[in-house]
């Protein structure tokens, strides 16, 4: 893998034998994927023709590589090889041919030659306990590699739930002290692209946007691109009508399940998950979990592993030593309050009884108490 040069995307595509016609098709598809009108296509074309490719360093920390697996299956904008030409992917230990010191050298060269210009893509997160020894890359702790590479990056793209939220390695009890990128790096623009993995087209869409407009997409409160994480799955779900009418699947393979009713009572996290699954879908738009009769597990949301069990609407609340849902806690507290009330009543009645018994003899005494 060669370090990035100053070629534009169009030049690179030409060198790969892509003709003008296919290039324009690619630009149109990219614009469509970003939700831009046809009027923006010339702008996309101009960007691809004139702007040098952005060097990208893609780091892998504690992760399962599902983000990369998803990414290379992107179908719009076009296939992954074109996109890999669009950006100059100079370091990616999963995809690169080089290995060992050679590639670490490339990373350092890019960091030096393109100071403040390269994009840092992070897949996975960094364990922080015990000096970060639970994840090492090239003999260095990943924590150090991340901080070092982030220092001169133009912006950081946090791929997947690991990098954005922490995901399973940061789930309770988080033995390695794994922390998402946003908690480790400050002072750099960070784009969170959560999901386990994120949808392929969302990943390529984010990169296309950055390349085309030389700007970061508009982010929401949690640092996610609004264009892909602006709505809940629930609000675009094709089973929403069953939710509103109150028709729910009650058990796997019951009548409702066969009729395709709402999976809310089976623990569907659609109402609490912001992602594009119900619109973009997965695997070239073939389907998504709800489509195949399985509730959403909310993989794009913060703490989704800790919000289990997945197939239960109300999750268990972790109170030290107790494992119960809010309903159980609420009922217990109400019963305790009721028992307290009852006990108070009984005590009061008993005292009254006692004072009544006393009264005949205490007739004179009570008058004396008045003083």
């Amino acid at each position, binding site marked *: 893998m060669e370090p990035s040069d100053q070629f534009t995307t169009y030049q690179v595509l030409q060198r790969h034998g892509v003709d003008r016609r296919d290039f324009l098709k690619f630009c149109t598809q990219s614009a469509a994927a970003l939700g831009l009108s046809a009027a923006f296509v010339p702008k996309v074309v101009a960007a691809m023709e004139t702007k040098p490719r952005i060097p990208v360093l893609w780091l892998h920390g504690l992760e399962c590589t599902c983000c990369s697996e998803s990414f290379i299956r992107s179908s719009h904008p076009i296939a992954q090889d074109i996109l890999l030409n669009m950006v100059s992917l100079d370091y990616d230990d999963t995809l690169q041919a080089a290995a060992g010191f050679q590639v670490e050298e490339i990373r350092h060269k890019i960091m030096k030659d393109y100071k403040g210009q390269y994009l840092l893509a992070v897949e996975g997160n960094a364990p922080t306990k015990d000096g970060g020894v639970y994840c090492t890359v090239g003999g260095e702790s990943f924590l150090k590699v991340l901080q070092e590479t982030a220092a001169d990056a133009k912006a950081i793209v946090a791929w997947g739930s690991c990098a954005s939220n922490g995901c399973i390695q940061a789930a309770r009890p988080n033995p390695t002290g794994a922390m998402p990128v946003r908690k480790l790096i400050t002072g750099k623009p960070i784009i969170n692209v959560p999901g386990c993995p994120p949808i392929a087209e969302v990943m390529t869409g984010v990169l296309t946007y950055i390349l085309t407009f030389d700007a970061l997409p508009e982010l*929401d*409160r*949690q640092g996610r691109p*609004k264009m892909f994480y*602006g*709505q*809940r799955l629930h*609000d675009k779900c094709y089973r929403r*009508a*069953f*939710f*509103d*009418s*109150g*028709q*729910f699947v*009650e058990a796997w393979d019951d009548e*409702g399940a066969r009729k395709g009713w709402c999976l*809310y*009572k089976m623990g569907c*996290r659609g*109402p*609490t*998950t*912001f992602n594009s699954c119900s619109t973009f879908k997965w695997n070239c738009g073939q389907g998504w979990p709800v489509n195949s009769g399985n509730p959403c597990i*909310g993989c794009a*949301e*913060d*703490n*989704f592993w800790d*919000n289990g069990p997945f197939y239960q*609407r*109300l*999750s268990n*609340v972790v109170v030290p030593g107790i494992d119960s849902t*809010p*309903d159980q*806690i*609420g*009922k217990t*507290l*109400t019963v*305790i*309050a*009721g028992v*307290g*009330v009852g006990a*108070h009543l009984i005590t*009061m009645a008993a*005292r*009254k009884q006692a*004072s009544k018994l006393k009264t005949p003899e205490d007739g004179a005494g009570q008058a004396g*108490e*008045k*003083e």
Partner: protein
Amino acid sequence: MATIAQPNAPPANLDPIERRRYVWEFPVRLSHWVNAIAIGVLFLTGLFIASPVAAPNGEAYNHFLMGKMRLLHFAFAYALVVGIAIRVYWFFVGNNYARSGFPFFWRRSWYKAVFGQVVEYTHLERGHINIGHNSLAGISYVAFFAMCGFEGVTGFALYGESNPGGFWDKLVGWTTPLLGGSFRVHMWHHLVAWLIVVFVVLHLYIAIYDSVLYKNGIVDSIIAGPKFYEPGDHDADKWIS
């Protein structure tokens, strides 16, 4: 304590009409009942939304059960906001009883009053009764309004999720990342709803207990307004007006 050993019977020279005092003004009573009804509806519809028990059969377009429950929930949420707004406004402009019981946790005398009230409730003899709210009641109402505030903020944050960038999202949407995601917000909203139920149980019991024990007409007073007092009963602090 000297205050406890008060006579149970009122002095014979005061007839009931003379012992009447107009305590809860109309806005206070209005707010109370708006809140009471709203909380009842909110809790029941909330339980239904969390766990929809009824399952209508047939085509989806024939039903709107969940939609109706959510509609009721949202409508009564607005009613509760209005009810609380009335009460908060009246806290500042109403009579002194509207402010009674406020926890002056920065004053030594308040801690004394709380201790005295605890002693009072564990005794059966009539001690110093507050014509307005007593100090323990004051704590419970502040806690109640805090819980309602929490339910309001989290509830409207969830309500605003269908329209990110909209009014409610801008106003209270910050709670979602603060509580660790939308799902957690649902959980907390659900849990605190139960705490309000616990409050209701205690509130009803104490009100009936006071009414039976002190014969001060406390339960009637939230419908009609006046309470009965006896010489020596604590009047409300005059600390704002």
